[in-house]
């Protein structure tokens, strides 16, 4: 009975699709007769290539063009060619580890802030995702519910994430209110350098941990239960079973988590920007925010420098992405 209804609904839903497919059938046959089977590949790829071209390749090209021009004009033909001057400005330092010695000190502050952020965030993310996945994989009550709870933040818009946590962490926010109720000392979570950095890391971990936990959970569930029973018969203590069985078998998934979260951490922007606005001072200013502010938010928009910075960051991301691709291939071969 229920399956009848399902079939019926399914037929209703697919009917328009089937109609479209039938309508497309005749012209496609004609096309295939003309272009041959090889030509069909190009035909089916075309829509995607168009979108990719319009929204990725063309902007990338324009970005290149802007990066070698100067001035404040918006339209490319109005801008003057400056060669590598923008890159010179960004990379000119007597000591790259000391932003004060750089011509564009804010860029290098953003660079080193990003490096620190990535280091801590990826570590924290991997550990939190691992712990979450282990808990979600164990025999707890209402497991499906907890899985949903941990995955839920992933579905939130980053701006919403930033706002929620700002309400919680701001000077007169929820957390301080609770501390006040318990007569504990209140903290300016978002305006003290150390706490603001910690909050930025913590919130971005909270927002994305569900996604990475899911990757690890899939890996954990792919490990046969028999192995743990064999290990139990072999007298393996739970901690040793984790290090000697779970971790090695989960390693491919763990690598994916590390690389993916690395790539995303480098691009950190929205939720932290909403949360702290890069402050206090420049203590949570990261690369994407630097690019955004130089290129769009400041009164003197410097699209040239912003484009050059984007390209530098893009270079780093390309390297990381290639790393991820390589690792995925390696994993699939295993």
């Amino acid at each position, binding site marked *: 009975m229920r399956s009848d209804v399902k079939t019926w609904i399914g037929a209703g839903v697919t009917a328009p699709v089937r109609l479209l497919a039938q309508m497309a059938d005749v012209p496609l046959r004609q096309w295939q007769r003309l272009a041959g089977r090889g030509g069909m590949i190009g035909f089916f790829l075309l829509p995607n290539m168009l979108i990719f071209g319009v929204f990725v390749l063309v902007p990338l090209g324009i970005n290149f063009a802007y990066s070698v021009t100067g001035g404040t004009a918006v339209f490319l033909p109005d801008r003057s060619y400056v060669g590598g001057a923008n890159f010179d400005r960004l990379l000119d330092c007597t000591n790259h580890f000391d932003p004060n010695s750089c011509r564009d000190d804010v860029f290098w502050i953003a660079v080193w802030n990003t490096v620190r952020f990535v280091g801590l965030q990826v570590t924290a993310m991997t550990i939190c995702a691992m712990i979450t996945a282990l808990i979600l994989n164990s025999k707890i009550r209402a497991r499906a519910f907890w899985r949903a709870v941990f995955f839920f933040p992933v579905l939130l818009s980053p701006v919403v994430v930033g706002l929620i946590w700002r309400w919680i962490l701001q000077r007169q926010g929820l957390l301080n209110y609770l501390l006040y109720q318990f007569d504990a000392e209140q903290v300016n979570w978002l305006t003290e350098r150390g706490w603001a950095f910690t909050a930025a890391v913590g919130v971005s971990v909270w927002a994305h941990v569900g996604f990475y936990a899911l990757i690890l959970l899939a890996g954990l569930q792919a490990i046969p239960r028999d*192995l743990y*029973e*064999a*290990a139990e*018969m072999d*007298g*393996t203590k739970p901690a040793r079973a984790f290090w000697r069985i779970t971790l090695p*078998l989960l390693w491919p998934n763990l690598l994916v988590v590390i690389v993916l979260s690395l790539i995303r951490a480098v691009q950190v922007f929205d939720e932290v920007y909403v949360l702290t606005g890069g402050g206090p001072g420049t203590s949570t200013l990261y690369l994407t925010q630097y690019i955004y502010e130089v290129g769009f938010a400041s009164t003197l928009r410097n699209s040239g420098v912003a484009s050059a910075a984007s390209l530098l960051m893009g270079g780093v991301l390309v390297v990381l992405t290639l790393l991820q691709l390589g690792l995925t291939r390696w994993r699939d071969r295993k």
Partner: protein
Amino acid sequence: MGRIRLENITKNFGGLQVLKGINLEIEEGELVVFVGPSGCGKSTLLRQISGLDKPSSGAILINDRDVTEVSAADRGLAMVFQSYALYPHMTVKLNLAFGLQNAKMPKAEIETRIADAARMLEITPLLSRRPGQLSGGQRQRVAIGRAIVRDPTAFLLDEPLSNLDAELRVSMRAELGALHARLGATMIYVTHDQVEAMTLADRIVVLRGGQIEQVAAPIDLFERPANRFVAGFIGAPSMNFLTPEEAASLNGTPPAGAALIGVRPQHLEPADSGLTLTVTLVEALGTETVIHGEIAGGKRLLLTLPGHRPVQVGGQLTVNADPARLHFFDAQDQRIG
């Protein structure tokens, strides 16, 4: 030493009682086979013995020590899993060593034990390979090797051969038998394959629906099945069951109270007088001929004759059996005599 005693073991999963009071005594060095249809609780019972699972009630004693609350690791048993459950990321050698390392055994001792087991199982050339690089039969050997190196009180094997192809299954079966003879260790072997049970076992435990139907040596099980279920389960093709009226023309007289008469297909032979059947199907296997037929009243009957017999489908055949070969069951399906 490896004496195992099960006292009134029950196991419930939620509202479902899967083991319904199992009592059994397994002697030192004995190879006991748990056999029964799929889902009868064989694996569950083995898991209670192994310590991977705890019974809902009852006690498990190993060498007179109550181990019901003792962890799997501390029972001194080794298990061979149907899936082999080899650690895929470790070499064969590490697979064998892992349990010994857990027990903090000295390196030299581990090396000797692995070398011995590998020689016994002829897996020495495979020691540096990973399980993924082994064939099914080789994995099976490694799984057994992992149990052997532990020098356990008893071996527990859960359908260890059912993932092998038919040919390999037969040869591994013989090897397991030889291994048991050589090690002299207690083994509990679970299978749903009665040929495995009959060939390997010192004693067979027939399970059905979470209860023991009969415990006996293979040949006793075949010759003196305790009830109708065992009679039908052991032996292939299955025993024929006839009502006293249907069996009236057979030699011999049923004892008082016999509600059912059983006769194995192998024990029926052509005769001048007896049951007359109409042949419906003939399966010529070369070594034997399986004849399906129907007697008056429509009851189906099977008999197997040695060698090749030219029998016509649709023809009539009169068969009879040695009265000593008949089995009698009462109205409660229990054996009489």
